[in-house]
C-alpha cells in the first residue's frame, strides 16, 4: 500500500481503539485491562489459548456484553468516532457498521441462502420501503432498492461460489459453505469492521486456503478492517498484518506475525512453562 494513498484517506485515528477493557462475570475476570488498536485496511488477529477471553472480547465489541470497565472507540473514515461500549447491541451493527460471525455458525437455517443475505441488508431496505408503508404499495423506488440489494447478494454469492445454491435452505448446506455464507452475510451489511470468530474451525486445508484468499481480497479491495479470532495458525500467519495475544484475559503480546512467532511470553502461554 503506498504512503500517498494512506495519507489521503486514512484519518489520524486507528479504526478500533480498545482501552483498558475489563469484563467481569461475578468473580470471574474474563478480560483484564486489555488495550490494543486495530488499523484500517489491516487484518488484526486475536489469538490465545482456549478460555483466554477472545470471544468475550468480540461480544464486548459487538455489544452483546457491556464491558465492566474500558473504552472502545470506532473511528470510521466517513463519520465521527463512536464509543461502542455505550451503544445498545443492535445499534453497533446498524450505526457503527460493525459486522460479525459466530464461533458456532448462526445462520437463519430455515431461510434460503439468498434470503440470509437479504436480511443482512435489512436497515437499508427498511428505509427504501418507507418503513413498510411504501413497500406495501409496491412503489418503483422500493423495487429498485430491492434489485440493488439482490445484486449485492449475488455478488457475494459469486465470490464464495454458492450462486447455484441460492434458493436452498441455508441449513442444508455443508458446514464449510455455511461458514463462508456467514462471512458473506456479514459483508452484505457493508461493514467498516468485520469481526470473524474462528472462521476456519472445521474447514479442511483446501477450504482454509480459500478462506485466506477471501479475507485478503476483502481487505485489499474494500479496505475495511478485519478482526480475526483463529486457532488455525496457517490462517493467522497467512493473513494477519498484526496480532494480539491474550492469555487469561490479559494481553501478553502485540505485534507483527514474525514478532509474535518469536515472543517468549507467547511461547510460554502456548507450550507451558518449562520446569527446571
Amino acid at each position, binding site marked *: 500500500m503506498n504512503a500517498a494513498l494512506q495519507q489521503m484517506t486514512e484519518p489520524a485515528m486507528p479504526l478500533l481503539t480498545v482501552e483498558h477493557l475489563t469484563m467481569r462475570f461475578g468473580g470471574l475476570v474474563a478480560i483484564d485491562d486489555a488495550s490494543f488498536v486495530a488499523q484500517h485496511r489491516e487484518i488484526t488477529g486475536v489469538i490465545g489459548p482456549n478460555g483466554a477471553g477472545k470471544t468475550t472480547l468480540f461480544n464486548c465489541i*459487538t*455489544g*452483546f456484553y457491556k464491558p465492566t470497565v474500558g473504552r472502545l472507540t470506532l473511528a470510521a473514515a466517513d463519520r465521527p468516532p463512536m464509543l461502542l461500549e455505550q451503544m445498545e*447491541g*443492535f*445499534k*453497533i*451493527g*446498524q*450505526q457503527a457498521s460493525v*459486522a*460479525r460471525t*459466530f464461533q458456532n455458525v*448462526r*445462520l*437463519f*437455517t*430455515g*431461510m*434460503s441462502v*439468498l*434470503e440470509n443475505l*437479504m*436480511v*443482512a*441488508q*435489512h*436497515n437499508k*431496505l*427498511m428505509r*427504501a*420501503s418507507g*418503513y*413498510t408503508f411504501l*413497500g*406495501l404499495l409496491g412503489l418503483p423506488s422500493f423495487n429498485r432498492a430491492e434489485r440493488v440489494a*439482490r445484486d449485492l447478494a*449475488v455478488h457475494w*454469492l459469486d465470490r464464495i461460489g454458492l*450462486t*447455484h*445454491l*441460492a*434458493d*436452498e*435452505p441455508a441449513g*442444508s*448446506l*455443508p458446514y464449510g459453505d455455511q461458514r463462508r455464507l456467514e462471512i458473506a*452475510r*456479514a459483508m452484505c*451489511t457493508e461493514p467498516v469492521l468485520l469481526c470473524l470468530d474462528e472462521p476456519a474451525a472445521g474447514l479442511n486445508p483446501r477450504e482454509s486456503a480459500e478462506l485466506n484468499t477471501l479475507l485478503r481480497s476483502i481487505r485489499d479491495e474494500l479496505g475495511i478492517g478485519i478482526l480475526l479470532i483463529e486457532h488455525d495458525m496457517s490462517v493467522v500467519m497467512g493473513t494477519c498484518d498484526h496480532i494480539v495475544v491474550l492469555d487469561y484475559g490479559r494481553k501478553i503480546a502485540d505485534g507483527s506475525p514474525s514478532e509474535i512467532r518469536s515472543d517468549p511470553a507467547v511461547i510460554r502461554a502456548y507450550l507451558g512453562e518449562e520446569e527446571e
Partner: protein
Amino acid sequence: MADTTMEKRLPGEAVASKAPSPLLVAVKETIFTAVLVFLLGVLMVGFQTQAIQGQYLSFVTRFDDVLWAVAIVPIGRFLLALDRQGQSWPALIVGGLAFLYFFGAGSTGVMELDVYKTLPLPFEEAMVNVIFGLGALLVFGTAIKSLRTAGQGRRTLPAREAAEARRANFARRLSVVLGPVLVAAAVVLPWTPWGDRQLVDSLVLVLTYVMLGWGLNIVVGLAGLLDLGYVAFYAVGAYTYAKLSTELGLTFWESLPIAGIFSAAFGVALGFPVLRLRGDYLAIVTLGFGEMIRIVLINWQAFTGGPNGIGSIGKITFFGFPFERKAAEGVTTFHELFGLQFSGSHRVYFLYYVILVLALITNFATIRLRKLPIGRAWEALREDETACRALGINPTNTKLTAFAIGAMFAGFAGSFFATRQGFVSPESFTFIESAVILSIVVLGGMGSQVGVALAAILLIGLPEALRELALYRMLAFGASMVLIMLWRPKGLLSYREPTILLHARNKKPMVSGTVK
C-alpha cells in the same frame, strides 16, 4: 407366522439372544394396561356424584362401564403389542371386526346418537360404541400400516429426510392448487343450491376464525412470538365498535378502521414492556394480559356493562342502506334499493361476503408483508434473534410491528363479531378462544396460509356440522387437537416458500437432500 416374524427383524435384533418372547412382552403390557385403566376409571367413571339440593353429595355407581373398559382396552393394547412385534394379522382381523361391530351391525349405530343427547347421563351406550369403535379403527389402521411397510426395516435418515422433502413438496403443490380453489368456492357458494342460510351462517363463523388465524399467524408463524392472549385484541376491537356504536352512533364502516387502530395501539402498549422476554415467558405474560382484559371487562361495570356486556350494537348496513323490513323515515333499505323482496337472509349473505373480504385482505397483506424487509426480519428473528442483533436489526421494534399488525387484524375481526352479534360480553373472550386460534395456526402448519384456512374449517366447521355430538363436542374438539398434533406435529400443510428466488423454481427440484 413365526417365520415371517424372523424375516422382519433387523439382523442385529435377531442375534440378540435373550430377548423375551413376543407373547410374554405383549401379555405384560396388557396386564399393565388393565391395571392402568382400572386406576383411571375406578373413581372417575365408577362413581357419579350428584349434589342433592346443592347441599351434600350422593352417588350412583357405574361399575359396569369400568369393567367394560378394563376388559376391552387391554385387548386393543395386546393386539397393538403383537403388531409391534411383527404379528399384524390378529390386529387387522380383530380390529376390523370390532370396528364393524361397534359402528354398525350388532348394536345401536352412531347414526342414532341424537336419541341420547337429551339424557343427563354421559357415556351412554352409543357413545361407548363410538369410543370403542374409534379405538378399534386405530388398531385396524396400525395393522394396515405395519403390513404395508413390512419388510422395509427401519427407515434410514436420508430416506426420512427425502420423505420429509416429498411431503413439503406435496404440501406446496397442494397449496398452490387449493388456495385459489377454496377462494373461488367461497365466493360462489352462496349462489349454489347448497348455500342455504344456515350453512352460510356457520361459514361466517368459520371465516372469522380463518381471519383470526391469519392474523395470529403473523405473530406466531412469521415472527415466532408465542401469543396466548390474542383474544384480548379481538375483545378490544369488539368493545371499541360496541362503544362507538352505542355512544357515538358511528356505523360499522366508520368504526372499523378506528377499532383496528385502537387494537394495534393496544398491541404496542402491551407489547412494549414484554416483548424483550423470550419464548415461554412471553406466552405466559400474554396469557396473563388476556385474562386481565377479560377481568377488567367483567368488573368495569360503568364502561363495559360488566358480565352482561353491551347490547343493541348497530347492525351492519349495505354501505349505509340497512337490512331491515322497514327503515326510518327517509332511509332506503337494502331490498328497496335493489327492488327485492325483503328477506332476513340478505344480511347473513352480506355478512358472509364482508368477512370473506376482510379475511382475504388479511391474507394478501400477510403475503405481501412477507416479501418486504420487515417480513424477512420477522422470520429471521424467529430463526435466530442473536444473529439478527449482530446484523443491526432492532429486535424490539421488529417484534412490536408484528404484534401491532396482528392485533390490528384481530381488532377488525372483533368489530365484525360485534356487528354480527349485535351484542358483546366478556364470555366471548375467554382463554379458550386464544387457545383455539393458536391451535388453528399450529395445526395448519406454521406460516402456511392455506393450512391455516384448512385447520379453521376442520376445527370450527366440523364441530359446527356435528352439532349432534352435543355434550361430546368439546371432548371431540380437544381430542382432535391432540390427535392432529400426534399425526402431523408440524401441522397439516407445512412448507416454506422462499420470499425471493434467484433461479426459476422449475429448474431445480426442491429436495434439500440433493444438495452436497
